[in-house]
Protein backbone atom coordinates (compact mmCIF):
# COMPACT_ATOMS: atom_id res chain seq x y z
CA UNK A 1 0.00 0.00 0.00
CA UNK A 2 1.87 3.07 -1.22
CA UNK A 3 1.85 5.59 1.57
CA UNK A 4 3.75 8.41 -0.10
CA UNK A 5 1.94 8.41 -3.43
CA UNK A 6 -0.04 11.63 -3.29
CA UNK A 7 -0.53 14.30 -0.70
CA UNK A 8 -4.22 14.45 -1.63
CA UNK A 9 -4.57 11.05 -0.04
CA UNK A 10 -2.79 11.95 3.19
CA UNK A 11 -4.72 11.86 6.41
CA UNK A 12 -3.87 15.52 7.07
CA UNK A 13 -5.60 16.51 3.82
CA UNK A 14 -8.82 14.82 4.87
CA UNK A 15 -9.33 16.76 8.10
CA UNK A 16 -12.67 18.54 7.80
CA UNK A 17 -12.81 22.29 7.81
CA UNK A 18 -15.20 24.34 9.96
CA UNK A 19 -18.85 23.82 9.11
CA UNK A 20 -18.34 20.49 7.34
CA UNK A 21 -21.61 18.63 7.71
CA UNK A 22 -21.02 15.25 9.33
CA UNK A 23 -24.05 13.83 7.48
CA UNK A 24 -21.82 13.72 4.38
CA UNK A 25 -19.80 10.94 6.00
CA UNK A 26 -22.48 8.18 6.02
CA UNK A 27 -23.08 8.50 2.23
CA UNK A 28 -19.31 8.29 1.72
CA UNK A 29 -19.25 5.10 3.81
CA UNK A 30 -22.32 3.76 2.01
CA UNK A 31 -20.64 4.24 -1.37
CA UNK A 32 -17.98 1.77 -0.27
CA UNK A 33 -20.29 -0.73 1.42
CA UNK A 34 -22.93 -0.69 -1.33
CA UNK A 35 -20.18 -1.64 -3.77
CA UNK A 36 -18.39 -4.34 -1.81
CA UNK A 37 -21.71 -5.80 -0.63
CA UNK A 38 -21.92 -7.19 -4.18
CA UNK A 39 -19.91 -10.12 -2.83
CA UNK A 40 -23.05 -11.59 -1.31
CA UNK A 41 -24.63 -11.67 -4.76
CA UNK A 42 -21.80 -13.76 -6.22
CA UNK A 43 -24.13 -16.77 -6.46
CA UNK A 44 -25.83 -15.04 -9.39
CA UNK A 45 -22.78 -16.11 -11.44
CA UNK A 46 -22.88 -19.76 -10.36
CA UNK A 47 -24.96 -21.16 -13.20
CA UNK A 48 -23.48 -19.03 -16.02
CA UNK A 49 -19.91 -19.78 -14.86
CA UNK A 50 -20.73 -23.47 -14.87
CA UNK A 51 -21.82 -23.40 -18.50
CA UNK A 52 -19.12 -21.38 -20.25
CA UNK A 53 -18.24 -24.29 -22.55
CA UNK A 54 -21.55 -26.09 -22.97
CA UNK A 55 -23.61 -22.91 -23.21
CA UNK A 56 -26.45 -24.60 -21.34
CA UNK A 57 -26.53 -24.41 -17.52
CA UNK A 58 -28.79 -27.47 -17.49
CA UNK A 59 -26.25 -29.59 -19.41
CA UNK A 60 -22.67 -28.68 -18.37
CA UNK A 61 -19.81 -30.04 -20.50
CA UNK A 62 -17.18 -32.30 -18.87
CA UNK A 63 -14.67 -29.43 -18.88
CA UNK A 64 -17.09 -26.90 -17.42
CA UNK A 65 -16.39 -25.69 -13.90
CA UNK A 66 -18.29 -27.55 -11.18
CA UNK A 67 -20.46 -25.77 -8.54
CA UNK A 68 -17.80 -26.64 -5.94
CA UNK A 69 -15.01 -25.08 -8.01
CA UNK A 70 -17.06 -21.93 -8.54
CA UNK A 71 -18.13 -21.78 -4.87
CA UNK A 72 -14.49 -21.74 -3.77
CA UNK A 73 -14.15 -18.27 -5.37
CA UNK A 74 -16.60 -16.80 -2.84
CA UNK A 75 -15.00 -18.69 0.04
CA UNK A 76 -11.57 -17.27 -0.85
CA UNK A 77 -13.05 -13.77 -0.97
CA UNK A 78 -14.65 -14.13 2.48
CA UNK A 79 -11.49 -15.59 4.03
CA UNK A 80 -9.43 -12.76 2.51
CA UNK A 81 -12.00 -10.27 3.81
CA UNK A 82 -11.26 -11.29 7.38
CA UNK A 83 -7.52 -11.66 6.91
CA UNK A 84 -7.01 -8.33 5.15
CA UNK A 85 -9.26 -6.51 7.63
CA UNK A 86 -7.10 -7.93 10.42
CA UNK A 87 -3.77 -7.27 8.69
CA UNK A 88 -4.43 -3.80 7.28
CA UNK A 89 -6.48 -2.43 10.21
CA UNK A 90 -3.57 -0.65 11.89
CA UNK A 91 -2.30 0.68 8.56
CA UNK A 92 -5.77 2.10 7.92
CA UNK A 93 -5.84 3.85 11.29
CA UNK A 94 -2.44 5.41 10.51
CA UNK A 95 -3.02 6.58 6.93
CA UNK A 96 -6.68 7.51 7.29
CA UNK A 97 -9.84 6.44 5.48
CA UNK A 98 -9.23 8.07 2.10
CA UNK A 99 -6.11 6.12 1.21
CA UNK A 100 -7.70 2.94 2.54
CA UNK A 101 -10.89 3.48 0.52
CA UNK A 102 -8.88 4.15 -2.63
CA UNK A 103 -6.90 0.93 -2.07
CA UNK A 104 -10.15 -0.95 -1.49
CA UNK A 105 -11.64 0.41 -4.71
CA UNK A 106 -8.55 -0.53 -6.73
CA UNK A 107 -8.49 -4.05 -5.28
CA UNK A 108 -12.23 -4.66 -5.57
CA UNK A 109 -12.60 -3.18 -9.07
CA UNK A 110 -9.28 -4.69 -10.16
CA UNK A 111 -10.36 -8.08 -8.83
CA UNK A 112 -13.31 -8.04 -11.21
CA UNK A 113 -11.05 -7.14 -14.14
CA UNK A 114 -8.53 -9.91 -13.38
CA UNK A 115 -11.44 -12.28 -12.83
CA UNK A 116 -12.88 -11.40 -16.25
CA UNK A 117 -9.58 -12.44 -17.83
CA UNK A 118 -9.78 -15.74 -15.94
CA UNK A 119 -13.30 -16.28 -17.27
CA UNK A 120 -12.27 -15.33 -20.82
CA UNK A 121 -9.33 -17.79 -20.71
CA UNK A 122 -11.39 -20.33 -18.74
CA UNK A 123 -8.67 -20.38 -16.11
CA UNK A 124 -10.21 -20.92 -12.66
CA UNK A 125 -6.97 -20.01 -10.87
CA UNK A 126 -7.04 -16.56 -12.40
CA UNK A 127 -10.65 -16.17 -11.23
CA UNK A 128 -9.61 -17.25 -7.73
CA UNK A 129 -6.71 -14.81 -7.77
CA UNK A 130 -8.74 -11.92 -9.20
CA UNK A 131 -12.17 -11.98 -7.60
CA UNK A 132 -11.21 -14.15 -4.63
CA UNK A 133 -7.76 -12.96 -3.55
CA UNK A 134 -7.38 -9.38 -4.86
CA UNK A 135 -11.11 -8.64 -4.63
CA UNK A 136 -11.22 -10.19 -1.15
CA UNK A 137 -8.50 -7.80 0.04
CA UNK A 138 -10.64 -4.97 -1.31
CA UNK A 139 -13.59 -6.34 0.66
CA UNK A 140 -11.65 -6.41 3.93
CA UNK A 141 -10.08 -2.97 3.64
CA UNK A 142 -13.31 -1.49 2.30
CA UNK A 143 -15.45 -2.99 5.06
CA UNK A 144 -13.45 -1.46 7.90
CA UNK A 145 -12.33 1.75 6.16
CA UNK A 146 -15.19 4.02 7.29
CA UNK A 147 -15.87 2.45 10.70
CA UNK A 148 -13.57 4.41 13.02
CA UNK A 149 -14.23 7.63 11.07
CA UNK A 150 -17.98 7.22 11.55
CA UNK A 151 -17.54 6.55 15.26
CA UNK A 152 -15.43 9.70 15.62
CA UNK A 153 -18.03 11.81 13.77
CA UNK A 154 -20.97 10.33 15.68
CA UNK A 155 -19.87 9.83 19.31
CA UNK A 156 -23.48 10.50 20.28
CA UNK A 157 -24.99 7.97 17.82
CA UNK A 158 -22.37 5.32 17.21
CA UNK A 159 -24.92 2.59 16.53
CA UNK A 160 -26.90 4.71 14.07
CA UNK A 161 -23.78 5.71 12.13
CA UNK A 162 -22.15 2.30 11.82
CA UNK A 163 -25.56 0.70 11.28
CA UNK A 164 -26.09 2.90 8.23
CA UNK A 165 -22.76 1.90 6.70
CA UNK A 166 -23.06 -1.80 7.42
CA UNK A 167 -26.65 -1.70 6.17
CA UNK A 168 -25.04 -0.75 2.86
CA UNK A 169 -23.22 -4.07 2.74
CA UNK A 170 -26.61 -5.80 2.88
CA UNK A 171 -27.95 -3.45 0.20
CA UNK A 172 -24.97 -4.12 -2.05
CA UNK A 173 -26.19 -7.62 -2.85
CA UNK A 174 -29.59 -6.22 -3.79
CA UNK A 175 -27.94 -3.96 -6.36
CA UNK A 176 -25.29 -6.44 -7.49
CA UNK A 177 -27.66 -9.28 -8.29
CA UNK A 178 -30.07 -7.53 -10.72
CA UNK A 179 -27.20 -5.48 -12.15
CA UNK A 180 -25.28 -8.66 -13.01
CA UNK A 181 -28.39 -10.33 -14.44
CA UNK A 182 -29.17 -7.36 -16.67
CA UNK A 183 -25.57 -7.12 -17.88
CA UNK A 184 -25.28 -10.86 -18.59
CA UNK A 185 -28.48 -10.72 -20.62
CA UNK A 186 -27.12 -7.73 -22.54
CA UNK A 187 -23.75 -9.38 -23.31
CA UNK A 188 -25.01 -12.92 -23.85
CA UNK A 189 -24.64 -12.70 -27.63
CA UNK A 190 -21.05 -11.42 -27.51
CA UNK A 191 -19.44 -13.79 -24.97
CA UNK A 192 -20.20 -17.18 -23.38
CA UNK A 193 -23.09 -16.49 -20.98
CA UNK A 194 -22.08 -12.82 -21.12
CA UNK A 195 -20.08 -13.24 -17.89
CA UNK A 196 -16.61 -11.93 -18.85
CA UNK A 197 -17.82 -8.56 -20.20
CA UNK A 198 -20.20 -8.30 -17.23
CA UNK A 199 -17.20 -8.63 -14.90
CA UNK A 200 -15.38 -5.87 -16.82
CA UNK A 201 -18.32 -3.47 -16.69
CA UNK A 202 -19.06 -4.20 -13.02
CA UNK A 203 -15.39 -3.73 -12.12
CA UNK A 204 -15.37 -0.31 -13.77
CA UNK A 205 -18.75 0.72 -12.30
CA UNK A 206 -17.70 -0.23 -8.77
CA UNK A 207 -14.28 1.37 -9.13
CA UNK A 208 -15.90 4.66 -10.16
CA UNK A 209 -18.77 4.48 -7.65
CA UNK A 210 -16.36 3.92 -4.78
CA UNK A 211 -14.48 7.10 -5.78
CA UNK A 212 -17.48 9.04 -4.45
CA UNK A 213 -16.68 7.70 -1.00
CA UNK A 214 -12.92 8.21 -1.46
CA UNK A 215 -13.22 11.90 -2.23
CA UNK A 216 -16.14 12.74 0.08
CA UNK A 217 -14.80 11.20 3.28
CA UNK A 218 -13.33 13.51 5.92
CA UNK A 219 -12.00 12.93 9.41
CA UNK A 220 -12.95 15.33 12.20
CA UNK A 221 -10.38 17.68 13.73
CA UNK A 222 -8.77 16.43 16.93
CA UNK A 223 -11.04 18.18 19.39
CA UNK A 224 -14.16 18.36 17.27
CA UNK A 225 -17.44 17.40 18.83
CA UNK A 226 -21.04 17.65 17.63
CA UNK A 227 -22.90 20.86 18.40
CA UNK A 228 -24.51 20.63 21.81
CA UNK A 229 -22.89 17.27 22.55
CA UNK A 230 -21.96 16.76 26.17
CA UNK A 231 -20.43 13.36 26.92
CA UNK A 232 -22.42 11.57 29.59
CA UNK A 233 -20.99 12.07 33.05
CA UNK A 234 -22.96 9.09 34.29
CA UNK A 235 -20.50 6.30 35.07
CA UNK A 236 -20.97 3.24 32.88
CA UNK A 237 -18.45 0.41 33.22
CA UNK A 238 -19.28 -0.81 29.73
CA UNK A 239 -18.44 2.48 27.99
CA UNK A 240 -14.84 3.48 28.47
CA UNK A 241 -13.32 6.92 28.06
CA UNK A 242 -9.87 5.33 27.82
CA UNK A 243 -8.19 3.85 24.75
CA UNK A 244 -6.88 0.36 24.06
CA UNK A 245 -4.59 -0.38 21.10
CA UNK A 246 -5.40 -3.15 18.63
CA UNK A 247 -2.36 -5.13 19.81
CA UNK A 248 -3.52 -4.94 23.43
CA UNK A 249 -7.18 -5.54 22.58
CA UNK A 250 -6.48 -9.04 21.31
CA UNK A 251 -4.85 -9.86 24.65
CA UNK A 252 -8.11 -9.20 26.49
CA UNK A 253 -10.79 -11.83 27.18
CA UNK A 254 -13.40 -9.25 26.12
CA UNK A 255 -12.11 -9.31 22.53
CA UNK A 256 -12.27 -13.08 22.35
CA UNK A 257 -15.75 -13.18 23.92
CA UNK A 258 -16.92 -10.78 21.20
CA UNK A 259 -15.14 -12.95 18.63
CA UNK A 260 -17.20 -15.92 19.82
CA UNK A 261 -20.33 -13.73 19.81
CA UNK A 262 -19.77 -12.76 16.15
CA UNK A 263 -18.83 -16.33 15.17
CA UNK A 264 -22.05 -17.72 16.68
CA UNK A 265 -24.16 -14.93 15.21
CA UNK A 266 -22.83 -15.37 11.68
CA UNK A 267 -22.81 -19.18 11.74
CA UNK A 268 -26.42 -19.26 12.94
CA UNK A 269 -27.45 -16.73 10.29
CA UNK A 270 -25.80 -18.84 7.60
CA UNK A 271 -27.93 -21.73 8.88
CA UNK A 272 -31.04 -19.82 7.83
CA UNK A 273 -29.65 -18.30 4.64
CA UNK A 274 -28.29 -21.61 3.30
CA UNK A 275 -31.54 -23.48 3.91
CA UNK A 276 -34.03 -20.70 3.18
CA UNK A 277 -35.03 -21.58 -0.36
CA UNK A 278 -35.39 -25.40 -0.05
CA UNK A 279 -36.96 -25.07 3.39
CA UNK A 280 -39.69 -22.61 2.40
CA UNK A 281 -40.48 -24.77 -0.63
CA UNK A 282 -40.89 -27.75 1.69
CA UNK A 283 -43.10 -25.73 4.04
CA UNK A 284 -45.26 -24.44 1.18
CA UNK A 285 -45.60 -27.96 -0.23
CA UNK A 286 -47.11 -28.97 3.11
CA UNK A 287 -49.91 -26.39 2.89
CA UNK A 288 -53.25 -26.93 1.11
CA UNK A 289 -52.43 -24.25 -1.47
CA UNK A 290 -48.92 -25.58 -1.98
CA UNK A 291 -50.04 -29.09 -2.90
CA UNK A 292 -51.22 -27.82 -6.29
CA UNK A 293 -48.09 -25.78 -7.10
CA UNK A 294 -45.61 -26.85 -9.77
CA UNK A 295 -41.81 -26.89 -9.37
CA UNK A 296 -41.30 -23.54 -11.12
CA UNK A 297 -43.81 -21.77 -8.87
CA UNK A 298 -42.21 -23.30 -5.79
CA UNK A 299 -38.74 -22.20 -6.97
CA UNK A 300 -40.04 -18.66 -7.54
CA UNK A 301 -41.51 -18.64 -4.03
CA UNK A 302 -38.14 -19.86 -2.71
CA UNK A 303 -36.33 -17.03 -4.48
CA UNK A 304 -38.96 -14.61 -3.16
CA UNK A 305 -38.34 -15.81 0.39
CA UNK A 306 -34.58 -15.29 -0.02
CA UNK A 307 -35.34 -11.77 -1.28
CA UNK A 308 -37.59 -11.07 1.70
CA UNK A 309 -34.86 -12.25 4.08
CA UNK A 310 -32.38 -9.91 2.35
CA UNK A 311 -34.72 -6.98 3.01
CA UNK A 312 -35.01 -7.86 6.70
CA UNK A 313 -31.26 -8.40 6.91
CA UNK A 314 -30.83 -4.86 5.55
CA UNK A 315 -33.44 -3.29 7.83
CA UNK A 316 -32.16 -5.20 10.87
CA UNK A 317 -28.68 -3.79 10.43
CA UNK A 318 -29.96 -0.25 10.79
CA UNK A 319 -32.83 -0.86 13.22
CA UNK A 320 -31.04 -3.01 15.79
CA UNK A 321 -27.77 -1.10 15.65
CA UNK A 322 -29.66 2.18 16.19
CA UNK A 323 -31.69 0.60 18.99
CA UNK A 324 -28.44 -0.46 20.68
CA UNK A 325 -27.63 3.24 21.24
CA UNK A 326 -30.61 3.31 23.63
CA UNK A 327 -30.57 -0.28 24.91
CA UNK A 328 -26.82 -0.63 25.41
CA UNK A 329 -24.77 -3.11 23.36
CA UNK A 330 -24.79 -5.92 25.88
CA UNK A 331 -28.58 -5.82 26.21
CA UNK A 332 -28.94 -5.67 22.43
CA UNK A 333 -26.86 -8.82 21.94
CA UNK A 334 -28.71 -10.51 24.81
CA UNK A 335 -31.92 -9.89 22.83
CA UNK A 336 -30.41 -11.13 19.55
CA UNK A 337 -29.30 -14.36 21.17
CA UNK A 338 -32.01 -14.84 23.83
CA UNK A 339 -34.92 -14.25 21.44
CA UNK A 340 -32.92 -15.97 18.71
CA UNK A 341 -32.68 -19.24 20.67
CA UNK A 342 -36.47 -19.32 21.11
CA UNK A 343 -37.17 -18.52 17.47
CA UNK A 344 -34.61 -20.98 16.08
CA UNK A 345 -36.03 -23.72 18.28
CA UNK A 346 -39.57 -22.83 17.18
CA UNK A 347 -38.89 -22.69 13.43
CA UNK A 348 -38.73 -26.47 12.71
CA UNK A 349 -42.05 -27.05 14.49
CA UNK A 350 -43.72 -24.27 12.51
CA UNK A 351 -42.24 -25.71 9.32
CA UNK A 352 -43.35 -29.26 10.09
CA UNK A 353 -46.90 -28.05 10.82
CA UNK A 354 -46.99 -25.97 7.63
CA UNK A 355 -47.58 -22.75 9.59
CA UNK A 356 -46.37 -20.71 6.64
CA UNK A 357 -47.13 -17.16 7.82
CA UNK A 358 -45.69 -17.68 11.28
CA UNK A 359 -42.65 -19.43 9.83
CA UNK A 360 -41.96 -16.49 7.50
CA UNK A 361 -42.38 -13.96 10.35
CA UNK A 362 -40.01 -15.95 12.59
CA UNK A 363 -37.38 -16.26 9.84
CA UNK A 364 -37.58 -12.51 9.11
CA UNK A 365 -37.06 -11.60 12.79
CA UNK A 366 -34.16 -14.08 13.03
CA UNK A 367 -32.42 -12.64 9.99
CA UNK A 368 -32.99 -9.05 11.12
CA UNK A 369 -31.14 -9.88 14.36
CA UNK A 370 -28.38 -11.59 12.35
CA UNK A 371 -27.89 -8.28 10.52
CA UNK A 372 -28.12 -6.43 13.82
CA UNK A 373 -25.34 -8.59 15.24
CA UNK A 374 -23.05 -7.55 12.39
CA UNK A 375 -23.89 -3.87 12.59
CA UNK A 376 -23.71 -3.46 16.38
CA UNK A 377 -20.19 -4.93 16.65
CA UNK A 378 -18.18 -1.74 15.86
CA UNK A 379 -20.11 0.31 18.43
CA UNK A 380 -19.64 -2.47 21.04
CA UNK A 381 -15.89 -2.47 20.34
CA UNK A 382 -15.76 1.31 20.60
CA UNK A 383 -17.60 1.19 23.96
CA UNK A 384 -15.13 -1.36 25.34
CA UNK A 385 -11.83 -0.31 23.76
CA UNK A 386 -12.32 3.38 22.94
CA UNK A 387 -12.12 4.99 19.51
CA UNK A 388 -8.31 5.01 19.22
CA UNK A 389 -7.86 1.95 16.98
CA UNK A 390 -11.43 0.71 16.80
CA UNK A 391 -11.20 0.17 13.03
CA UNK A 392 -8.18 -2.09 13.45
CA UNK A 393 -9.80 -3.98 16.33
CA UNK A 394 -12.94 -4.42 14.23
CA UNK A 395 -10.75 -5.74 11.43
CA UNK A 396 -9.32 -8.40 13.70
CA UNK A 397 -12.80 -9.31 14.93
CA UNK A 398 -13.87 -9.96 11.35
CA UNK A 399 -11.71 -13.10 11.25
CA UNK A 400 -14.70 -14.59 13.13
CA UNK A 401 -16.81 -13.85 10.04
CA UNK A 402 -14.29 -15.62 7.79
CA UNK A 403 -14.29 -18.62 10.11
CA UNK A 404 -18.08 -18.71 10.15
CA UNK A 405 -18.15 -18.28 6.38
CA UNK A 406 -16.28 -21.57 6.03
CA UNK A 407 -17.72 -23.41 9.06
CA UNK A 408 -21.37 -22.44 8.60
CA UNK A 409 -22.05 -24.05 5.21
CA UNK A 410 -20.05 -27.15 6.25
CA UNK A 411 -22.21 -27.62 9.38
CA UNK A 412 -25.44 -26.99 7.46
CA UNK A 413 -24.64 -29.41 4.66
CA UNK A 414 -23.29 -32.09 7.01
CA UNK A 415 -26.41 -31.99 9.22
CA UNK A 416 -28.97 -31.82 6.41
CA UNK A 417 -27.19 -34.57 4.43
CA UNK A 418 -27.15 -36.79 7.55
CA UNK A 419 -30.90 -36.32 8.01
CA UNK A 420 -31.47 -37.05 4.34
CA UNK A 421 -29.44 -40.27 4.65
CA UNK A 422 -31.66 -41.24 7.59
CA UNK A 423 -34.69 -40.97 5.31
CA UNK A 424 -36.04 -37.58 6.38
CA UNK A 425 -37.50 -35.38 3.68
CA UNK A 426 -38.97 -31.87 3.36
CA UNK A 427 -38.76 -29.49 6.33
CA UNK A 428 -37.74 -32.37 8.66
CA UNK A 429 -34.38 -32.52 6.84
CA UNK A 430 -33.38 -29.19 8.36
CA UNK A 431 -34.61 -29.78 11.92
CA UNK A 432 -31.16 -30.54 13.38
CA UNK A 433 -29.69 -27.54 11.55
CA UNK A 434 -32.01 -25.21 13.43
CA UNK A 435 -31.55 -26.94 16.79
CA UNK A 436 -27.76 -26.84 16.38
CA UNK A 437 -27.90 -23.16 15.51
CA UNK A 438 -30.07 -22.56 18.59
CA UNK A 439 -27.33 -24.29 20.61
CA UNK A 440 -24.72 -21.98 19.06
CA UNK A 441 -26.82 -18.99 20.06
CA UNK A 442 -26.78 -20.22 23.66
CA UNK A 443 -22.98 -20.19 23.47
CA UNK A 444 -23.09 -16.66 22.01
CA UNK A 445 -25.53 -15.55 24.71
CA UNK A 446 -23.20 -16.79 27.47
CA UNK A 447 -20.14 -15.25 25.82
CA UNK A 448 -21.93 -11.88 25.70
CA UNK A 449 -23.16 -12.13 29.29
CA UNK A 450 -19.64 -12.56 30.68
CA UNK A 451 -18.26 -9.50 28.86
CA UNK A 452 -17.18 -6.95 31.46
CA UNK A 453 -15.18 -3.73 31.37
CA UNK A 454 -11.60 -4.03 30.06
CA UNK A 455 -8.91 -4.13 32.74
CA UNK A 456 -7.11 -0.78 33.11
CA UNK A 457 -3.70 -2.37 32.54
CA UNK A 458 -4.53 -2.58 28.83
CA UNK A 459 -5.26 1.16 28.55
CA UNK A 460 -2.92 3.43 26.58
CA UNK A 461 -0.89 5.65 28.86
CA UNK A 462 -1.03 9.33 27.98
CA UNK A 463 -2.59 10.98 24.89
CA UNK A 464 -2.86 9.04 21.65
CA UNK A 465 -1.89 10.55 18.30
CA UNK A 466 -3.65 10.50 14.94
CA UNK A 467 -0.58 9.00 13.23
CA UNK A 468 -0.71 6.11 15.64
CA UNK A 469 -4.32 5.60 14.87
CA UNK A 470 -6.23 7.79 17.22
CA UNK A 471 -7.20 11.40 17.51
Amino acid at each position, binding site marked *: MAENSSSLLDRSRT*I*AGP*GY*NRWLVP*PAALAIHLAIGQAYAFSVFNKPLGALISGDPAKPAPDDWTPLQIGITFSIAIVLLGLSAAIFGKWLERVGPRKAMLSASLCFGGGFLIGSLGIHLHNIWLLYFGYGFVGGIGLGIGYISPVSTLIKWFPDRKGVATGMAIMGFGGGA*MIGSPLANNLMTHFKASAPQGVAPTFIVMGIIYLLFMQFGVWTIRVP*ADDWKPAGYVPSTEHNDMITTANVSADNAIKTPQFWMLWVVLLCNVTAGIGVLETASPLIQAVISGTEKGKGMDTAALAAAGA*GFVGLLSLFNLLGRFFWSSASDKLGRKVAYAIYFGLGVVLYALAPTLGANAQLTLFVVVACVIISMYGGGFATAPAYLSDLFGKYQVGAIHGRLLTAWSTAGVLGPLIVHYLSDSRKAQGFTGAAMYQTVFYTMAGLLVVGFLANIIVTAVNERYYEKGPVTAEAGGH
Partner: protein
Amino acid sequence: MNPQPNSPTPPAVAESGVGGSVVLAWLVVGLPLAWGVSQTFIKALALFK
Protein backbone atom coordinates in the same frame (compact mmCIF):
# COMPACT_ATOMS: atom_id res chain seq x y z
CA MET B 1 -18.66 16.80 -3.09
CA ASN B 2 -16.15 19.05 -1.43
CA PRO B 3 -17.97 21.76 0.43
CA GLN B 4 -15.03 22.95 2.50
CA PRO B 5 -11.29 23.34 1.98
CA ASN B 6 -9.19 20.38 2.97
CA SER B 7 -6.61 22.18 5.07
CA PRO B 8 -6.12 21.15 8.70
CA THR B 9 -8.14 23.61 10.70
CA PRO B 10 -9.23 24.27 14.25
CA PRO B 11 -12.14 22.28 15.61
CA ALA B 12 -15.51 22.82 14.05
CA VAL B 13 -17.99 22.57 16.84
CA ALA B 14 -21.01 23.74 14.94
CA GLU B 15 -22.70 21.38 12.54
CA SER B 16 -24.11 23.15 9.51
CA GLY B 17 -27.67 22.55 8.40
CA VAL B 18 -28.79 20.20 5.66
CA GLY B 19 -27.20 21.73 2.58
CA GLY B 20 -27.49 20.90 -1.09
CA SER B 21 -24.31 18.83 -0.99
CA VAL B 22 -25.75 16.60 1.72
CA VAL B 23 -28.95 16.03 -0.24
CA LEU B 24 -26.93 15.32 -3.39
CA ALA B 25 -24.64 12.91 -1.51
CA TRP B 26 -27.59 10.96 -0.18
CA LEU B 27 -29.13 10.83 -3.66
CA VAL B 28 -25.92 9.38 -5.12
CA VAL B 29 -26.09 6.40 -2.77
CA GLY B 30 -29.84 6.39 -2.13
CA LEU B 31 -30.96 5.98 -5.73
CA PRO B 32 -28.98 2.78 -6.46
CA LEU B 33 -30.02 1.41 -3.07
CA ALA B 34 -33.68 2.22 -3.73
CA TRP B 35 -33.41 0.50 -7.14
CA GLY B 36 -31.87 -2.60 -5.54
CA VAL B 37 -34.48 -2.69 -2.78
CA SER B 38 -37.33 -2.32 -5.29
CA GLN B 39 -35.93 -5.16 -7.42
CA THR B 40 -35.68 -7.38 -4.35
CA PHE B 41 -39.16 -6.39 -3.18
CA ILE B 42 -40.64 -7.32 -6.56
CA LYS B 43 -38.87 -10.69 -6.35
CA ALA B 44 -40.14 -11.19 -2.80
CA LEU B 45 -43.74 -10.69 -3.94
CA ALA B 46 -43.58 -14.14 -5.57
CA LEU B 47 -43.72 -15.61 -2.08
CA PHE B 48 -47.16 -14.16 -1.50
CA LYS B 49 -48.70 -15.16 -4.84
